């Protein structure tokens, strides 16, 4: 036996008695694999222009895993972006941020009304999420250091002072501050909740997620007693490794269907303003109709998959 063989024998012997939890590993791998397939499928459909904006988002969010949850059972976390930052990568776009949100939602639900914007060192998106208990606005914002750009940090959230309320240091060194607040501090609509997590990772990237118990942040009737996700769920969500500051061009293209990002607002007056308002109203109505149709289609698909009795409207929408 030469040295190579002897060393090989040592390695084999050292690990031969390790017994991994095979069943859990396999179940988790399948769950993650299904998720990977969905992501690829979503990208292919989007670039093929098969589905209209919003509907695809809904479908992606509604396709369940075998166990009804969104991903695997890894005890160590969730998949990271496999590609390190490198030449050819693009800054995270509002649409890709929304796509990431769909892929990492703590629980499945319908998602509509996407919007978002980006600036040097910051990107954000907002959408309405409905898990069947009422629409809720979700806002996600990422801020990250960019050479030459001034950071737009909303309030001091680092470091967590010892014992500071709602602020925790996670095992990976990220600092997270959570709060259950209200949309209006002056007492208007005291039941209008705003729950938030601000998380700063060790690499200086800040991920903030806000959620409301109304389909829009302002001016909408309260639709549910509380926002949909717990603060723990928000914290876990904000700490997902899929929140990356750069993305591949393929990922940027795959997400571009979700919405047009907000650009500089033109100043309108007179007839132009009236026309613009009228157009926005029509578009809003169309979005609501599309969301309603998408929701019904998803319900029909779910009922069909479970061999349940189809609601009457299923015959009319297909």
């Amino acid at each position, binding site marked *: 036996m030469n040295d190579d063989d*002897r060393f090989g024998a040592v390695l084999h012997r050292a690990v031969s*008695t390790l017994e991994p939890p095979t069943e859990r590993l396999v179940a988790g791998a*399948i769950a993650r694999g*299904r998720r990977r397939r969905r992501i690829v499928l979503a990208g292919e459909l989007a670039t093929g222009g098969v589905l209209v904006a919003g509907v695809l988002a809904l479908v992606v969010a509604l396709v369940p895993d075998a166990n009804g949850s969104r991903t695997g059972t890894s005890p*160590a976390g969730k998949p990271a972006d496999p590609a390190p930052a490198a030449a050819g990568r693009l800054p995270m776009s509002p649409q890709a941020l929304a796509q990431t949100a769909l892929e990492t939602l703590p629980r499945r639900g319908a998602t509509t009304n996407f919007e978002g914007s980006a600036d040097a060192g910051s990107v954000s998106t907002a959408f309405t999420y409905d898990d069947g208990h009422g629409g809720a606005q979700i806002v996600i914002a990422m801020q990250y250091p960019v050479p030459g750009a001034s950071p737009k940090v909303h309030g001091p959230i680092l470091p967590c002072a010892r014992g500071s309320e709602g602020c925790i240091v996670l095992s990976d060194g990220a600092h997270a501050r959570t709060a259950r607040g209200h949309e209006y501090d002056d007492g208007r609509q005291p039941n209008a909740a705003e729950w938030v997590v601000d998380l700063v990772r060790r690499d200086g990237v800040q991920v903030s997620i806000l959620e409301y118990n109304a389909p829009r942040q302002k001016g909408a009737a309260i639709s549910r007693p509380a926002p949909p996700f717990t603060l723990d769920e928000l*914290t876990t969500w904000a*700490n*997902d490794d899929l929140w990356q500051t750069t993305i591949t061009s393929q990922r940027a293209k795959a997400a571009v269907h979700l919405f047009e990002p907000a650009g500089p607002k033109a100043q309108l007056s007179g007839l132009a303003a009236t026309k613009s308002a009228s157009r926005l109203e029509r578009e809003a109505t169309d979005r609501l109709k599309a969301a309603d149709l998408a929701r019904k289609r998803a319900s029909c698909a779910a009922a069909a998959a479970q061999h349940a009795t189809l609601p009457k409207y299923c015959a009319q929408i297909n």
Partner: protein
Amino acid sequence: MNSTRDGDAAFREFASSCSPSLFRSAWLLTGDWHAAEDLVQDALSRMYRIWGGISRIDNPAAYAQTVLARQFLTVRRRRSFGERPSAELPDAGAAGPDSDLRVSLVAALAELPKRDRAVIVLRYLADRSVEQVALDLGRTPSAIKVQSMRALAKLRAALGEDLLDLAQS
């Protein structure tokens, strides 16, 4: 639907059979039980995604080892986002001489660069040839030979020559 179920059953069988060897490689690579589980799941999930075209791959189990090693090298390991209380500690194998051996080996491997660790695990645990490892990692055979010799020398320095005698004890 049936083909999906059949595919899942076949994949489950494949994954169950190669999980132990993948996990042992992952454990030597990462030196951490949970990180090893994570790496194995990651590699297997990638296998799952391509499972429909798996017939084009000669040896899926060997390919899974390659995927695992590449993932180890390319993926910035994800951050654990919180302590997870567990009712039972993972079984890291029985205590005894082999347990000491494991601890010493993992500590010594942790001192090596990640690429050297991958070479050691592929060469000596997965029993790959130099040429196969070179293909797996996208290097030349001569580079793998040099890397392998250098890594072994470092391990010997860290563990002592006596360690190799354990193989024959």
